[in-house]
């Protein structure tokens, strides 16, 4: 059994996991973690609950994916609507709300990019910075690529076969170069993950600690917005150069 399941089982007190300190049903003081100790009714999770706390994880970025999955499965067994089909409407509603929150928390933390974006939002409270112009070191390259892409789109199939083929090959090579760059950015993001996880706790020199934190968060934010920009260009390239009928939007972050 892994470290964290033991924590779950021992019912270690957690930060604000439930919406209220009284059972919604029997009004007795809450002693259990997710269920009332007296009437055994499921309790609603607080809407303010952050995803790390929800999944019983420290606010770190390199996380134990297997532990994450085990906790998710264990909590799903606590909350899933399939196990509340015969219960009253109140419990059904709580089961639905809790599971929807749990599913969102799991989905967000499972994906490294979403996890980082979520952490930045949680720590810095800032909205996602959407980049609209290319990162400085990519400026010329992207400009040329956009022109080629425009020309490729304007040439309909059938005419200027050679030029089309030439552009197609060039765009495909560009796509590969950008994918490599994106992978490189993800590596750098991982480095920031380790820096974040190594930051000292709250107790030691609050001001200095905060400055360090902010530096890491800003660094990650920069990488993430550059990555999003590159990813969108890659998606455009994929959409423009893949054969018709295969143009579903890519759902990956």
């Amino acid at each position, binding site marked *: 059994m892994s470290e964290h399941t033991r924590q779950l089982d021992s019912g270690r007190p957690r930060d604000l996991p439930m919406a209220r300190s009284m059972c919604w049903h029997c009004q007795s003081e809450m002693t259990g973690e997710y269920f009332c100790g007296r009437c055994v009714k499921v309790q609603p999770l607080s809407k303010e609950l952050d995803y790390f706390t929800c999944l019983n994880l420290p606010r770190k970025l390199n996380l134990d994916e297997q532990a994450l999955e085990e906790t998710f*499965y264990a909590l*799903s*067994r606590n909350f*899933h*609507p*399939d*196990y509340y*089909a*015969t219960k009253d409407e109140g419990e059904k509603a709580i089961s*639905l709300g809790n*599971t*929807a929150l749990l*599913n*969102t928390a*799991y*989905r967000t933390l499972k994906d490294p990019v979403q996890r980082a974006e979520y952490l930045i939002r949680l720590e810095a409270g800032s909205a996602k910075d959407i980049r609209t112009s290319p990162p400085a070191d990519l400026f010329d390259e992207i400009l040329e690529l956009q022109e080629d892409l425009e020309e490729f789109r304007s040439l309909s199939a059938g005419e200027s076969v050679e030029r089309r083929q030439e552009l197609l090959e060039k765009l495909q090579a560009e796509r590969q170069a950008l994918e490599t760059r994106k992978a490189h950015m993800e590596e750098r993001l991982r480095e920031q993950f380790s820096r974040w996880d190594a930051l000292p706790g709250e107790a030691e020199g609050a001001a200095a600690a905060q400055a360090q934190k902010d530096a890491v968060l800003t660094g990650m934010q920069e990488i993430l917005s550059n990555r999003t920009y590159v990813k969108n260009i890659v998606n455009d390239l994929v959409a423009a150069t893949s054969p018709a*009928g*295969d*143009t*579903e*939007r890519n*759902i990956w972050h």
Partner: protein
Amino acid sequence: MALIVGIDLGTTNSLVAHMANDGPRVILGARGQAKVPSIVGLTDNGLLVGDPAKEYLVRDPSRTIYSVKRFMGKAVADVADELKYFPYTLQEKGGVIRIQVGEKTYSPPQVSAMILKELKLRAEAHLGEEITKAVITVPAYFNDSQRQATKDAGLIAGLEVLRIINEPTAASLAYGLQQNTQGYIAVFDLGGGTFDISILKLKDGIFEVLATNGNTHLGGDDFDRRLVDAVIRDIDAQHGVKVEDSPELMQTVRLEAEKTKIRLSDESQALMAVSLPGGRGTYERTWSREEFEALILDLVEQTMTPCRHALSDAGLETGQIDEVVLVGGSTRMPVIRSRVQALFGKTPHCDLNPDEVVALGAAVQAGILAGENREMLLLDVTPLSLGIETMGNVMSTLIRRNTTIPTSAKEMFTTYVDGQTGVDIHVLQGERELVKDNRSLARFQLKVPPLPAAVPRVEVTFLIDANGMLNVTASDIRTGESQSVQIKPSYGLTDEEVESMIRESFQFAAEDIRARQVIEAKTEADAIIMATEKALKRGADLIPAEEIQSIRNGIEELRAATTQEDHRLIRARIADMEKVTHHLAETLMDATLKEALESKKLSEVID
């Protein structure tokens, strides 16, 4: 806890199953048959469902409805290119197809409800108690409107639909229960009208769907149509008969094509024969499996793209799939099996009957909902992205496809103009950029207090529940008041329509049962008369003259009985017939046996 049954409401066949003490069991009909053909005959004398309706189909195609599942949650424009294959006229009201039969029209949920009622009766007869709760399966790739239509069908049939569950996922439950599998599995589900592929991760009793994809308009029906088209061309060229001009002939050709397709799964060639009306002769052709496969090659190929999409969405390579499971009657076709095997590089599983596995899985899910099974838990996903229309006719995605359900997304809305009192919201489902390329689900108007522009703040929560269906709630952030949202479905019945269809179905229920018994008895009597006359021709020389006369008298009495609306009388005459024909039947059987033995001897001599 009242019993909950699991129902597979299929395009071609439907089944009902329940959890017995030793596991899920399909409930059989009176004659031991598991499948109820999803066919409804709306005769002048009442309703026929299943096998009797299938027999009635070639007699009166314009009053017999089949493959109604293809119309669920659809408008006429959605099915325009396949209208020529259907013998009935379609209309549309409020974005919902209405099938015209005689003077009346029926919505697809009403017709599906007739099939569900038949299954409900079958389950009640077997289990000895009233059944009011069910789990009903739908193709995983069904959108919200199609799921809602299925739920409406349940309501109209007097069933509380406790859960709408995806067919491939249901199949995985049945397999998982049987084999205690762990790892990644791919469920390839090709039925009569729909195709689904689902990728799941099985671990410690948790069935987590990672991705699903499919095509709700691709299945056995489409394979049949390719063969039908070829036969229509043949008949026109060889006999100068236009099959499309005769609905009865069209249905005969369709049923023969289906039979030929099924035979070609086991045999390398099959003879197809259709007798043409008006003494125009008989169309005969031997189809080889290769010829048939050549006709459907592109359709088979169409199942491959969704598989690749699903794998990519699951973040897996084909090599990582531990097991492949085949579901649905169409996966009996060797060409499908070899194509699936080639894609995944694994021999697919088909240990459980592909026709029954979905119903069995629905029964397993029913057991979970009833609280009888806490070992297994299904975590399913929404198959399509959900979003709203934004400026420039673009869809803005709120919930991405393959998100684990239940799930919710919140969106804040405000006003553009001072004093504006409403905000129109258009909900969409699909994967494309532009509104027009996605499916419109519903429209609603948010009520907003008249205030300066951009001051009101209304938060709307879009929640997809465990059935994969949308629920919308809204609350005013300034006042904290929640408001009810009146949704107008784009392709669905209104609550009032469903209500009135439920009432109508109750009203006619008693009448239906009586009429049905009469029609079933008459259909059976017709078949017996035909068979007896045939037997008399063959056996006239083998039995005494007085016996022939008493059989003739029996036929006349049975025929007279069928002119009256009394099923008991008809049944009594049928029983009489069985008595007087008993000796003839035995004699013929002996003769046949003797013939068979003699011909065997003859062949042995020749060898």
